[in-house]
């Protein structure tokens, strides 16, 4: 984790920081108290990654330390929301152990919520821990490689397999996975299931999913999943609850769409982590939660206020950027640094950018239909499955819609699926005269390319291509 220099802050900024800092610690403390502090201390031995999660509040320093005013507040809300979600997820391991369902990251948990089950995203730790404690995740990567998993497999499934192999994955009642997002991720569940000895259901997403035949096919898969979960877990589908989850999701999405509209303005009143953290969290990991809607509403209000006051999120917005591929987990404050050094405003990223319809909740069939589209056509799911057109059409749409100056591709070496598109990507960008920075690095393993080297790649690009 790298921290940027902390410039002088106003009294309001200090107050904002202290408020969210203390709130976050209160949530973490509550988790310990609620579950018996002695018990939780013992759990630190069973699940050493809890030590890393306890550092979650450091994200507040990382993401808001150098930011000011309303933009600082928006990022504080995003971090606070993440801390609350981490606390709730960990709490679920202890208080709903009999209903704990391990689900793959691109299989959103609405159905599990609708059935009264407790989701635990298998890749959650592999995503969050490198943000907080890069070296800790590398231990699990090594564990998987020592077991024989090839070093060239994506480090996210390697991390997840490493956790399972180290007996540090909470024991679930059942597992729900799919063929997303890539072959490495898909096949990792054979090993995870063997290790955890829990029943598994896997959803099959077709290659071409933008058609009625695919929607019907996948609705069939979802029906089989619900039936299977009713047979293998204590969960029972409650369609009223399901409807409420989907409607909450819709409310969150409507607010998010408003933020996106505002972000099209020049300069943009919102950028950075305040854009992508809630998007990742409530669009993919924990959709349908009131907390998500509230966080989005607060960020939208801030963006509106900033727009009305003609304020830009990044004080001196010089370059407008979209980030493609998942964010650089080993260098989570890349854009905090880039904002300061180059005036780069990151306005949209692959994982946030949904083209989902709102879910029609008028009938059970329509709910499943909406969910089928959301899962099949979700971010990353649609980019790594299906033809290359799925990958490129979003990028070039965003280029136009957000008046982007350049694309930053987080070129994770383990993502062979997207690496195999880089030749085409370069040619297509060249045709459009659109600068493309391909950051060579590994998503979760800082030993491959350390953050300092990422900075060097950005510097070279900004100096030579953008003439910054």
């Amino acid at each position: 984790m790298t921290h940027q220099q902390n410039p002088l802050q106003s009294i309001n900024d200090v107050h904002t920081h202290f408020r969210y800092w203390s709130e976050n610690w209160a949530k973490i403390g509550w988790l310990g108290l609620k579950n018996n502090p002695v018990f939780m201390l013992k759990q630190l031995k069973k699940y050493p990654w809890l030590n890393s999660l306890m550092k979650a509040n450091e994200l507040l320093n990382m993401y808001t330390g150098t930011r000011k005013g309303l933009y600082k507040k928006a990022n504080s809300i995003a971090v606070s929301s993440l801390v609350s979600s981490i606390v709730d997820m960990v709490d679920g391991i202890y208080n709903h152990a009999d209903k704990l369902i391990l689900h793959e990251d691109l299989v959103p948990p609405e159905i599990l919520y609708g059935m009264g089950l407790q989701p635990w995203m298998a890749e959650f730790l592999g995503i969050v821990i490198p943000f907080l404690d890069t070296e800790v995740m590398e231990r699990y990567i090594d564990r998987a490689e020592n077991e024989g998993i090839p070093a060239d497999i994506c480090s996210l499934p390697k991390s997840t397999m490493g956790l399972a192999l180290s007996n540090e994955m909470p024991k679930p009642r059942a597992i729900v996975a799919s063929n997303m997002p890539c072959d490495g991720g898909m096949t990792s569940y054979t090993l995870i299931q063997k290790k955890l000895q829990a029943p598994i259901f896997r959803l099959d997403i077709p290659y071409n999913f933008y058609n009625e035949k695919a929607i019907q096919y996948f609705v069939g898969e979802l029906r089989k999943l619900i039936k299977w979960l009713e047979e293998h877990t204590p969960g029972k589908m409650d369609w009223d609850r399901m409807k409420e989850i989907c409607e909450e999701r819709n409310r969150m999405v409507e607010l998010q769409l408003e933020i996106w509209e505002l972000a099209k303005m020049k300069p943009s009143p919102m950028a950075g982590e305040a854009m992508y953290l809630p998007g990742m969290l409530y669009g993919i990991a924990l959709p349908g939660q009131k907390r998500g809607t509230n966080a989005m509403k607060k960020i939208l209000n801030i963006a509106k206020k900033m727009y009305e006051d003609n304020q830009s999120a990044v004080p001196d917005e010089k370059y407008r950027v979209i980030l493609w591929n998942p964010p650089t987990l080993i260098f989570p404050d890349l854009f905090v640094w880039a904002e300061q050094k180059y005036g780069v405003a990151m306005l949209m990223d692959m994982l946030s950018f949904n083209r989902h319809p709102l879910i029609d909740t008028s009938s059970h069939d329509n709910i499943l239909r909406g969910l089928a589209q959301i899962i099949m056509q979700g971010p990353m799911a649609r980019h790594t499955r299906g033809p290359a057109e799925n990958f490129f059409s979003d990028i070039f749409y965003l280029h136009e819609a957000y008046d982007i100056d350049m694309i930053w591709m987080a070129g994770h070496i383990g993502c062979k699926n997207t690496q195999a598109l880089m030749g085409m990507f370069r040619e297509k960008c060249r045709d459009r005269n659109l600068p493309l920075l391909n950051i060579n690095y590994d998503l979760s393993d800082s030993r491959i390319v350390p953050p300092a080297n990422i900075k060097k790649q950005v510097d070279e690009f900004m100096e030579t291509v953008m003439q910054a």
Partner: protein
Amino acid sequence: MNDSFDLQSLSKLTAEPVNSMAQKAQDAGKHLIAYTCRFLPEPIISTNRLVPIFLRPNQYISTPMADTYLSSVTCSYSRCLMETALDFSLENLDGWVFVSSCDHLRRVHDNLVHSIKPAFIHMLDLPHKQEESHIKWYANELEFLSKKLEKHFEIDMGNTSIESSISDYNNFQAMLRDISILRKQTIPLISGYHFHLLLMASLCSPKHLLFDFVKELCAALPENDRDETKKPRLMVIGSRIEDSEYIKKIESMGAYVVADRFCCGSIPGLNDVELGESDNVFEALSRHSFNNTSCPRMMDEFDLRMKIIREAMEEYKVDAVIVETMKFCDIWGVESVPLIHELKQMNIPVLRLEKEYASTGMGQMETRLQAFLESL
């Protein structure tokens, strides 16, 4: 096997991606349809004037042009394939049919569409599970492909034509099965190398032109001179082993490769297409695709794959197993871990070998094989 039985002609047939027999068929008015995955049921691209050509671009060791597009972290089969296409060595193909078998091949398809723009190219959407709904889905895919082929090549792809193609295919499969079982004998009547050569030649040559040769081979083999030496009997499990020299190298170290559980191997791979009474022709072909392959890209089938391996080990009296993985292949890279674990639980000696698509680094492999065989 006696080398005098025109074995050299088989080697020649496997030396080029598009061999002389394929050229001959094309000169006679046939259309060469390239494919890259065994999940594509051959009869659909053998119908009427179509000839299936399974692409084995193992002539390329370095792939500089392909690396520009696919990067150097995709599997070397994908890169060799792309390099061959970019090198204009596949210009005379009339069409390409891909299966959404793995990430790397899907991206080869995307890059071919972008760079080569073949006149006929199609991607079949293959499910990752094989329940009834998935079999029906794939049957629809095959039906759609047949209509597209019919229109593009102006040929008859009606049921009668496809059934005739199935019948020819089944006849050929039966001959290969007859030869395959000769490996079950205490001293195999055909070496693993020769059998592999035969399989590869039959995949990349027009079957109607190879038929008489294989028929004669069937008759000649039981009379064959055999090597009476007792050697360890090996099963080779893995992904794309399409260079017969690889099998030859293993056998040259003092072993018989009696069982081949890899993409282009015979376990499974030599089943007939069964035209059940209730099936339509596409459902029969779809069912056959799932029954005739055993690939870790299928999500729920690990236990079934293990069962196939256990049964084959018994049938072929296997002493030890070699698990081959191709560098950068995600699917086999992960699958090999639980697979080796289970084999070890069964007290079966296992050697894991990583290789590139083209057989390189044979010296290193030789040392490891030697040590492994000595330990048996």
